[in-house]
């Protein structure tokens, strides 16, 4: 047994309670804010010696000085002379600890006087109630980091049942920007989750939305792992290696030539799949892009009509000049043009109860979508999507929306999450549990401002997702500014270094001033954790993720500049067939328009055929080389007779 490091004290002014106690230690005692201690009572209760576990939440230092003035006088008002005093003032350390657990748990009594010990690894497991879910053979523990204090290194586990459901679910991370805490923590936790999530609980995958910078773009590339981190990985029983299975999805740039992602370096393109949607996919989520000011009830009715009666059907009407089959934005625009021309000819103000002004407005708004979401929404109706229905176990699907307009980001988020939800409801996504990681929750689910479709979706996941296996891992800089129901439904909360302004908001009032100070000064790689099993927040250290960091990746694999159409086609097709070269592409595409070439490339990427060259070539219309027509010989004109009486 280790030596006692302190003794419990209680005074009339500072009595102990069932949830808090005080103890003193020697000056050089290895304890501080966040240290877990054990108190051994001296009097048995019901025949059992009580053991109380607590975490230090406040510390006090005292001397016998009654007034600062006495110290000033003692040193003649000169601070420099203080160092010469041969005697040092008597000083004590007094700590306040919040109770984590009492054994026996009943009767719940104020903490008794007793010796205080530094908690060892076994104590930490008991103190944090981890013993209930770390049972041999049925452990649901997911290592989140290492608790360190005074020579104790204890692995802290989250309970998978409370992280991914069904008991509780969701995880929220808060921390200032720039310290790589939030993204690093999620990357590390996903590694740990994929390693330790019990196989008998089913398969698990993650969809991560990369909303800014290149942070999530190199999850499959190895990163630097320091020796100290290697030791942490070993302790936490996670291999320090990049994710084995990662798939990237990104839309094209507005020009449609290259993918709009930080990961568009040719060396990394093989794992990036284009994300393109057509009219049908967009119309399902038109309300994401059309706000209430844009679309009133009349416009909504027309959109419904188009969605149900026009899209993907043969549509004819006496007003129209021809039959329409609308499958793309281009088809839709042609349909609108025909309707409006027909109305103009008839000089009518309404058609099928829809007023001409409403028709013009809806045409304007819907046509705009393909412009606002250029690169994502195709005019031609081609769809390249996430592999809904065939998600694979322990795979991360990264959707890179970092370089997109806000509207396009919202559309992608809304549609993908809705599809995930639909598939999980039908149990045919391919995996049983899915983690969705969304950063910048301040933007997507703010506490104030108008209600958006995206915020409604996040609320829905937060409140009902765990029953489906849909778990939200969210991150933001200012937790206080995120919708309360989103953060409130997160069973587990991680906190990196915090901003002092944020810490002064009411949500942090439950933390002691010392804990708040510690939060404001946390180092990289340190986190404070709140988890349903822990009655108090715990500080842990986690290893730097073993994947390439965004900045390093961006330097090693610089983003490709805009390329020519031929080069873009070559870059897209070469991962499918390495024998393809630029002269071949130039030869095949020489006679065709840019739209035709892009369509052929997209179709080939979508089909991923075995014979890429043949498939790509077959996408173009046949052009028969023009042959010069033989020039007919002109019949000779007979000359006029010399004696022509009519000649002049």
């Amino acid at each position, binding site marked *: 047994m280790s030596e006692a490091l302190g003794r419990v004290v209680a005074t009339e002014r500072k009595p102990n309670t069932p949830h808090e106690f005080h103890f003193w230690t020697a000056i050089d005692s290895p304890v501080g804010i966040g240290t877990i201690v054990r108190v051994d009572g001296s009097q048995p209760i019901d025949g059992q010696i009580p053991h109380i576990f607590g975490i230090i939440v406040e510390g006090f230092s005292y001397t016998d000085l009654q007034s600062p003035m006495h110290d000033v006088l003692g040193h003649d008002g000169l601070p420099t002379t203080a160092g010469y005093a041969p*005697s040092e003032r008597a000083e004590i350390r007094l700590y306040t600890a919040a109770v984590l657990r009492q054994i026996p748990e009943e009767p719940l009594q104020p903490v008794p006087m007793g010796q205080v010990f530094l908690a060892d690894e076994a104590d930490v497991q008991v103190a944090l109630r981890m013993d209930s879910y770390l049972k041999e053979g049925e452990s649901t523990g997911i290592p989140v980091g290492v608790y360190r204090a005074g020579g104790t290194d204890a692995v802290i586990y989250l309970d998978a049942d409370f992280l991914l459901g069904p008991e509780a679910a969701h995880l929220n991370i808060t921390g200032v920007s720039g310290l790589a805490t939030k993204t690093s923590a999620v990357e590390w936790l996903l590694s740990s989750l994929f390693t330790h999530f019990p196989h008998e609980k089913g398969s698990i995958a993650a969809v991560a939305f990369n909303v800014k910078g290149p942070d999530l773009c190199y999850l499959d590339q190895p990163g630097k792992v320091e020796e100290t981190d290697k030791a942490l990985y070993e302790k936490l029983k996670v291999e320090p290696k990049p994710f084995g299975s990662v798939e990237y999805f990104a839309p094209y740039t507005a020009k449609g030539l290259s993918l709009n992602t930080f990961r568009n370096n040719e060396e990394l393109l093989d794992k990036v799949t284009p994300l393109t949607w057509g009219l049908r996919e967009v119309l399902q989520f038109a309300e994401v892009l059309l706000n209430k000011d844009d679309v009133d009830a009349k416009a909504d009715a027309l959109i419904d009509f188009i969605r149900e009666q026009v899209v993907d059907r043969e549509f004819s009407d006496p007003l129209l000049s021809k039959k329409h089959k609308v499958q793309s934005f281009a088809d839709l625009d042609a349909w609108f043009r025909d309707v409006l021309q027909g109305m103009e000819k008839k000089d009518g103000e309404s058609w099928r109860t829809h007023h001409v002004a409403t028709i013009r407005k809806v045409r304007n708004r819907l046509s705009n979508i393909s412009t606002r979401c250029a690169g994502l929404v195709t005019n031609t109706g081609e769809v390249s999507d996430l592999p809904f229905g065939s998600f694979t176990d322990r795979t991360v699907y990264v959707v890179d929306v970092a370089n997109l307009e806000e509207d396009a980001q919202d559309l992608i988020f809304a549609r993908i999450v809705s599809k995930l939800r639909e598939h999980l409801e039908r149990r045919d996504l391919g995996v049983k549990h899915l983690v969705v990681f969304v950063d910048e929750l301040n933007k997507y689910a703010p506490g104030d401002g108008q209600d958006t479709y995206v915020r409604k979706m996040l609320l829905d996941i937060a409140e009902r997702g765990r029953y489906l296996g849909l778990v939200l891992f969210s991150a933001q800089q200012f937790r206080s500014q995120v919708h309360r129901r989103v953060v409130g439904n997160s069973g587990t909360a991680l906190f990196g270094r915090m901003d002092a302004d944020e810490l002064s908001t009411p949500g942090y009032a439950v933390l002691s001033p010392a804990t708040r100070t510690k939060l404001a000064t946390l180092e990289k790689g340190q986190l404070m954790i709140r988890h349903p099993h822990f009655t108090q927040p715990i500080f842990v250290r986690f290893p730097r993720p073993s994947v390439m960091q965004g900045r390093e990746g961006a330097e090693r694999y610089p983003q490709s500049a805009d390329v020519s159409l031929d080069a873009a086609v070559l870059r897209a097709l070469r991962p499918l067939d390495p024998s393809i070269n630029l002269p071949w592409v130039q030869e095949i595409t020489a006679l065709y328009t840019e739209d035709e070439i892009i369509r052929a490339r997209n179709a080939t990427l979508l089909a991923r055929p075995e014979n890429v060259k043949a498939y790509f070539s077959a996408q173009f219309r046949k052009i028969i080389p023009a042959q010069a027509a033989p020039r007919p010989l002109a019949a000779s004109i007979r000359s006029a007779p010399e004696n022509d009486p009519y000649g002049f």
Partner: protein
Amino acid sequence: MDSSTADKDGQYPSEHPVALYEKATRAVDRDREALEDQLAEEWCARGEATLFVDGGISRSARVSASSCAIGVIKSHRTLYVEGDALRIVMGLRRGERSSIFRVSPRSRHSVLSWYLRLREADGHDPMWGLVRVEAADCERPAERADEVSRWIIAETSPLALPDGRWDKMSYGIRDCEEFLRAIS
């Protein structure tokens, strides 16, 4: 106190509680002094470092002759100077000491002594910040007195407040008293 036993003259101690209390106090003081002397003698025998004694050192022959013990007396019930010498002592400024004199009490042992002003007495009584120092006889008493005086002045910081005798008391002595009070 045992009030049931007669002394050598056959007299029984008074049974008055106050008298008994005073007698007990004196007995405890004697025992404490004996213990202090014993501890100081053991310390001086080791000869490792100088011992700051709160009070005189002339009670013990071994301590009074050891260069390891310095006595600092805060109370001045007995004055060892008179006339011009008294005026000089009362007029000492901070950091000044008197000349050295020998103190040879009848029942005690002879030591060297001098007065030392620890704090400026302006606005206070003439005894403010004045201590008397006792040290063992030595070959160069003036140099020794200067050296010891510097040590004692260094011990004026930190202040021994809130003790009422903080002007003369070193912090270490106050700390020791606080410790004894806490465990008694």
